[in-house]
């Protein structure tokens, strides 16, 4: 968790601003409470006096902060995913001009640093180590331009998409399943958030040709558990229907609706089709959908792109090389207007709404307490102190409600609901990050401050003579 917080603080501007505001509010608050405990207690007592108003303001702020945390979780995740990373720079190789990307199996042999057997498994040396691929296009021995690129066996992954239904001829949410056909050794290390997958599960996948890993929601929708077998009638590989055995469950989160199968099993099925029908399946030379490589940095990525996009061996079809963030960004381009609308219209409007609610409540409070403020002035309190009193009350309500609302969002969504269940493109659910606590405090405090500036200035300028002449 601390690693996540640290990474967010290093890369995310909004989180940085929220962190600074939260620290400032907490620091000022704690310092004020320590140096002027009586004033702080007076603030708390004032809030307690009209509990109904304080509760209503608190609840209104909390509800709106909760909503913004929900929305910002989605926006933040998408922005983070489409932002180029400084480290763990992943590159996607796909067919250059069309979707879906469909590349021939020979490309696996060109782009893999490890030699691949015809059946789709990694080739090993007698001592068990993985064998180097002599045809690897980015090996400096084959291509001097590739000097310094350094792609190892753990820096490569290929994806083939195999989809179908567990009910023949019927395609519904409950029966559809889409598999990533992958080489098991590639799962850990290249798939985000799958580093915690036990090695035993990977070994099980290697030893069980028809083995598959399913996400939690996919298991539930197909009514399966680990150890069960099922059959899939293919959607995109017509007449290549396959049976599977569930060997394990994928971690909860972004893979809830995903499924992974063995690339070798998939390859063998297409070979079997050829042997049975005496002709290649129409998708035989279109089976590879994505190839991933991990490179050191952006400069290496640019170098890889230059080599691959112009290479004579990569002509049918030509490929494009893009960063993971850019590739995902292209898919999300269709949602750009929605996301911009949410970011630049909805969120600011809700923040203004929060400020208005607080401004209203504090204005009413100041209006009702004019006599009290006049008395405080008579007792020797300076205008600045009275202004701080009003600001402090507002900040206290704002900061506490913001913090509690974001905490509630983290608990409700992450613990009880498995994330915010809202499908955008291929992201099925979104986890509220721990840094949402900073967002909550910052939002609550900032809107409270903005909403109470005018009322606090009004309180500061209460004229004693005017108030008491009215009273008289």
């Amino acid at each position, binding site marked *: 968790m601390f690693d996540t917080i640290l990474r967010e603080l290093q890369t995310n501007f909004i989180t940085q601003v929220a962190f600074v505001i939260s620290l400032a509010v907490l620091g000022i608050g704690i310092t004020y409470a320590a140096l002027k405990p009586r004033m702080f207690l007076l603030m708390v007592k004032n809030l307690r006096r009209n509990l109904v108003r304080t509760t209503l303001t608190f609840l209104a702020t909390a509800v709106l902060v909760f909503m913004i945390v929900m929305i910002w979780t989605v926006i933040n995740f998408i922005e983070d995913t489409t932002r180029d990373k400084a480290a763990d720079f992943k590159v996607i190789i796909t067919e250059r001009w069309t979707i879906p990307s469909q590349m021939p199996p020979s490309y696996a042999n060109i782009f893999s640093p490890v030699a691949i057997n015809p059946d789709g498994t990694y080739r090993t040396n007698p001592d068990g180590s993985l064998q180097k691929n002599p045809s690897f296009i980015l090996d400096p021995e084959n291509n001097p331009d590739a000097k310094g690129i350094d792609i190892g066996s753990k820096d490569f992954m290929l994806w083939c998409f195999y989809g179908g239904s567990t009910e023949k001829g019927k395609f519904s949410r409950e029966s*559809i399943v889409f598999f990533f056909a992958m080489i098991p050794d590639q799962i850990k290390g290249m798939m985000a958030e799958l580093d915690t997958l036990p090695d035993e599960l990977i070994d099980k996948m290697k030893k069980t040709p028809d083995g598959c890993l399913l996400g939690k929601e996919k298991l539930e929708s197909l009514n399966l558990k680990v150890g069960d077998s099922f059959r899939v009638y293919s959607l995109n590989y017509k007449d290549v229907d396959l049976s599977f055995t569930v060997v394990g469950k994928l971690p909860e989160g972004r893979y809830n609706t995903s499924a992974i199968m063995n690339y070798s099993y998939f390859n063998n099925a297409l070979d079997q089709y050829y042997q049975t029908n005496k002709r290649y399946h129409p998708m035989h030379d279109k089976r590879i959908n994505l190839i991933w490589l991990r490179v050191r940095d952006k400069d290496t990525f640019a170098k890889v792109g230059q080599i691959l996009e112009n290479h004579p061996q990569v002509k049918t079809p030509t490929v494009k090389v893009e960063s993971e963030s850019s590739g995902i960004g292209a898919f999300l381009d269709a949602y750009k207007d929605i996301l911009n609308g949410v970011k630049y219209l909805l969120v600011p409007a809700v923040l203004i*709404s929060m400020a208005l609610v607080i401004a209203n409540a504090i204005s009413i409070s100041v209006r009702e307490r004019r006599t009290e403020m006049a008395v405080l002035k008579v007792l020797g309190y300076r205008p600045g102190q009275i202004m701080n009193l009003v600001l402090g009350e507002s900040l206290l309500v704002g900061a506490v409600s913001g913090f509690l609302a974001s905490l509630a969002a983290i608990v409700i969504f992450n613990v*009880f609901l498995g994330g915010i269940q809202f499908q955008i493109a291929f992201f099925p659910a979104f986890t509220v990050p721990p840094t949402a606590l900073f967002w909550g405090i910052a939002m609550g405090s900032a809107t409270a401050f903005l909403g109470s500036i005018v009322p606090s200035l009004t309180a500061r300028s209460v004229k004693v003579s005017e108030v008491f002449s009215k009273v008289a």
Partner: protein
Amino acid sequence: MLFYILIPLFVALALLVVVSIGTAFTAVAFSFMPFHKVPLRYNLRNLQVRWKTTLVTALAFTLVTALLVIMLAFVRGMDRVTQSSAIPGNVIVLADGATDETFSNIANPSVQLFPDDVQKSIQKITRTQGGKKVREFLLSREVYVLVSHIVKQHDDGGRKRRFIQMRGISDPEISSQVHEVSLASGSWWSASGVRSVPDPAGSSDAKIEVLEVVLGDGIARILASDLGKKELAPGDIVQIGPNTCVVAGVMNPKGSYGSEVWGRDTQIQQIFNRGNRFSSFVLRTADDETGAEVAAKLKKLASEKYNASTETEYYKRLEGSSSVFRVAIWFLGAVMAVGGVLGVTNTMFAAISQRAKDIGVLRLLGYTRFQILCSFLMESILIALIGGILGCAVGYLFNGMTATSIASGGQGGGKSVVLQLVVDLAVMGPALLLALVMGAVGGFIPSINAMRLRPLESLR
């Protein structure tokens, strides 16, 4: 555990909302009856005197209503696009198992192999070919490709890309009749589908062969803005994916086809390595009932298995994403409404505590508790009405704005659509209603408090 805590809370909230709305209806009805009641002038005057508080509270309603109007207008725009794409009587035929044209791959359909009753159900047009009148089936063969299009080259080597939908069709005249598409400007492409034009990058004498395309109105606007132009006209040269293209024509607005680029099927099959395969074919029957029968028969053909449905059903499935957005919008609207409700409750509590003497006087004048309740509830609803109307007005400013989205059935695939936000009564009505409900719910408990004030105590 959370479920058992939240259920009673939701039930209590639901009861509060129902009772508040019921009481509000009564209060509004009451205000129009010729009974002895607290004059509405009293409430209006109070709103005027405390105009700052009224304005701030109403602004909160304005924001909620405006946001809801804009979001609902977006979804309405999406629905309009998908609904106007569907022609009653059209049957769209994909490969067996495919639910989307992106993943569909079929051979050139031979209508003569269809059963006789299916052939009879397909409408025909009469054309003159070689001086003879020929009757031809209204059947449009189409190859659909999603092209990865580079928008601009960034300095750091990264490229911005978007997906453009290209549709190759064999006979523009037939396809335009099947899809009821017409041209706003220009013409359809030549028989070959390519044209010789001066090389934009070469000398004035050099010529290149470019693909002739017809653009949907929406994609024409987007491609024009990429080039810094207001609109694209016939004759303009534009790069789409790997192809240099010349704009032969631009379509009139027509549903999801407004987001597409059309060209000669053979050219598109060749460029994108599709062989002689198609993605779909669409045929025209008399009506949806006939279309459904034809679709059912096509699904059972022995020669080739198809997945066929009427266009009405097909585009209805694409409204799946609209439904998801609609649920999300109302959820967000409800959450924002809670904030607004709490805000107006605060205002009304303060108003009532400041006007306790007024209430005492009203009671002494003979007004009943119920009349007091209705009066203050009306005041809350009036604030909501002012804010709601302003919100609708602000939301209306977004009417006609262009946006992009994806229409999808949620099972993979989907169509990128260019839509226009539609702000009409169907959008403003529910938003205004929500504002009024917020006013009713927010003002209910303070009004109950006002109703319970004892005259003598309030005057003390």
